[in-house]
């Protein structure tokens, strides 16, 4: 039986959902809703053209996913939040033991490994539609791991436009699926995707900050990252709020770490109050009017 939901209903449902903190206060200040709104998509942009590189974007995305999947107990009248994180890994390069210490006993991690592009789009759509899923983590259209021939090929002209159109349609479907179920989609994309159209609520560029990380024993204990708001809905772009922030990711627990100098870590970028218009053309503008 197919259920039909109108756009108006979706909007109402979206507004009724309480905004959840991402676990990092600077990041909450950056997001347009003041936190992560269940039923939305967030894009993380990282250095490197073929993969997320060593920048820390995927780790931060996973820490946010863990926070979203945290079971909330003890509040009067509160019902348990969904506890499942689904990772859609087309490349096969995801290494779960890196993040398993952050899961604990109450969260559940499911990894789906589709082998084709259309399967990947379908899997992300299905996972976002499920009310029992807290967060879906994926790196769509990532060319890492494929042969050099496919990686290096550049589509030209109309083929490129067609691919972008298909991509935009897929992303719109994901946004509607997330809005209907309350799951959050976290997508890690290369920095070159800034120019592509987006249906995400916020697009955050993640860059690592070198040096000065606290170390414990024989390994790094935390990661310092600079986040820059790089796009998203009109509300995000047009707001006069902050556009950059520094966060500290505690690698042992997968949450926000304490800063050594204790002061607030949000910073304003010196420069124009409104961000520079991003390249993208007409299609970019059209899809932002959501």
């Amino acid at each position: 039986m197919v259920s039909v939901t109108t756009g108006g209903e979706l909007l109402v449902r979206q507004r009724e959902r309480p905004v959840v903190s991402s676990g990092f206060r600077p990041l909450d200040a950056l997001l347009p809703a003041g936190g992560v709104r269940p039923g939305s998509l967030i894009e993380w942009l990282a250095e490197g053209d073929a993969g997320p590189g060593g920048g820390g974007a995927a780790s931060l995305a996973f820490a946010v996913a863990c926070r979203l999947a945290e079971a909330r107990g003890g509040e009067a009248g509160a019902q348990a939040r969904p506890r499942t994180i689904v990772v859609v890994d087309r490349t096969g390069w995801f290494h779960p033991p890196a993040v398993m210490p952050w899961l604990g006993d109450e969260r559940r991690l499911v990894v789906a490994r589709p082998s084709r592009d259309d399967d990947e789009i379908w899997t992300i759509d299905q996972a976002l539609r499920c009310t029992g899923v807290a967060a879906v983590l994926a790196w769509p259209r990532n060319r890492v791991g494929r042969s050099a021939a496919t990686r290096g090929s550049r589509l030209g002209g109309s083929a490129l436009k067609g691919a972008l159109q298909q991509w935009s349609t897929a992303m719109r479907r994901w946004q509607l699926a997330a809005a209907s179920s309350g799951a959050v989609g976290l997508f890690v994309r290369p920095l070159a995707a800034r120019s592509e159209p987006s249906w995400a609520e916020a697009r955050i560029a993640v860059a690592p900050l070198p040096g000065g990380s606290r170390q414990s024993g024989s390994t790094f204990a935390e990661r310092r990252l600079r986040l820059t708001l790089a796009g998203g809905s009109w509300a995000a772009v047009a707001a006069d709020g902050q556009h950059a922030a520094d966060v500290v990711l505690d690698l042992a627990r997968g949450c926000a770490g304490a800063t050594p100098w204790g002061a607030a870590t949000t910073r304003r970028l010196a420069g124009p109050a409104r961000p520079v218009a991003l390249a993208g053309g007409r299609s970019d503008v059209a899809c932002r009017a959501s």
Partner: protein
Amino acid sequence: MPRFLTIWLPRWPVQRRLLARPELRRVPVFVCRRERRGAMTVVSWAWAEPPPDERRKRVVSGRSGRVVIPAGMSLAEAMAVLAVAHGSRACHVAEVDPDDPAADRESLERLARWCRRFSPTVGLEGALDGAPECLHLDVTGTAGFFGGEEALVRTVVWTLAARGVHARAAIADTPAAAWAAAHHTDAVAQLLHQTAPLVVRRAVEGAAHGVRLASRRHRRWAVVPRGEAATLLADLPVAALRIDAATAAAVAEVGIDTIGGVLAIPARSLASRFPPLLCRRLAEFRGTMAEPVVPPGGEALPQESHAFDFPVRTADLDEQQLLGLIEGLLGRCLAPLVARGEGVLALQLRLEQAARMAAAPTVIDVGLFRPTASQQHLVELVRLRLTRQRLPAEIDGVAVEVIAAGAVSCRQRLLFGGGVGGLESADADAEVAMLLDRLAGRLGRGAVCEPQAVGDAQPEHAWIAAPPNGRPPPAQSPRPAPRDGGRAPRERVSRSGARGYAMPRPVPAGRRPIWMPPRPVPLDGLEGEVMAVAPDGPPVRFRLGDVLHRVAQAHGPERIETAWWRGPTVRRDYYIVETDSGERFWLFRRLRDGGWFLHGMFA
């Protein structure tokens, strides 16, 4: 008067492995369990087909030649005993397997279902230690179909032998008496003064193994006549009553060592002097306490089929029509299951081809991760599989069979509960289970998994993709981990957990990269190159593709030396390096030749 047949499958853990891998018949097979503090004890062992010179050695040496290794003996001692009897070569070729009682039980249940040809009611024994080795069959009144009880029990033993299963069987008035008789068929047969014990020809499956004559004359079946169990079995040892060690010790203290002696004790003093288990067993032996035979797996599972009057061409058949037909069949299958409170766990759909084509039916197996009674969900899964399946040109009929069923958890739904963001956790689990079924239906069952850490030092093998809600990972090979070779001396690993396998060693967070290529990328030549100042020190500069990175900080080395049993030993020194732009990579130097590799990125 009820009659029960008991089939005893001696050393069933070993027999199961021999059935699965016939090549193990030529070597001694030990099934071991890892106890606390790492000691390995033997659960069961056997050497099915020792080479001919070994057998001759046994006969020539003049001793009885039987190697006695009781259950519970440590593996080292057992190997020593084997070496003394057959030489050290036997120890080198011996196969040591970890204990897996769940798999033993499952295969025994499968055998029980196969034994339904002898009786409709077949059940497993309720063993005291949880490892059943016997099957009880209720053969009241069925002996006539086989030409008498003697013929029945002989047929059972020979049919099982033809399948490669070594068994002993006995018929008596109660399951307890039949159990005792089955464990001592030689003695019972002699007591019955039957003809000289026959030489049993046991035809092993597979002509390559040939036919083997039993070296000792055994009688592997026995029939205890009605009402004579107490007299006939009086001389059997007390252990044939299925008592535990404590009770056996209590009885031995008093000086009684046969069943007849126990039967002679007056009932009043029996109850006051011995543990209650003994009284219960005696009551079961005499038949005053009933011991029901419970078949495993419950009742038969429903199946429905629909045959067309004439073969239908799939080109003419609409997908909706086919799905509608399957939906109807599924509904009829689900009705009895729902009445029992169960749901479907595995389903098989068969599209029969026209008889004149004489081809095998197209079979689609749909498995679920949780039992479901939702017709809609099942039809959706079948539809996902059908779209990927090439259908035959003509179909003669459609059959739907439920292969496995399980209890469906019932939850009372709230009448006014559930808001926009609220979700009961049981609802969430059910939703996720349905999502996993759909994903597995389209991507394949191997593509959807829940990662589980295993205790392997080599990073490529540090986790396995376990099926969601599946069983815990199988016990690992009981070979001891390399001493002090797998980790730096400070990180001493803690030895085995409660069960037979080592608990996975949790790697501290932050030590492993989230992005790891399936094979390490060599950084020599085209892909990149690495420069290190000291010959065994951390790298200072490396090139990846066409980007040159300078190393600002490096942590390491973390030495991993392992996997000598998988091939050439893996010896690597791992470094977590942070470049001056803040990116972190995981590099290692292969100690064999000093080559550098990239094995991960802390994305």
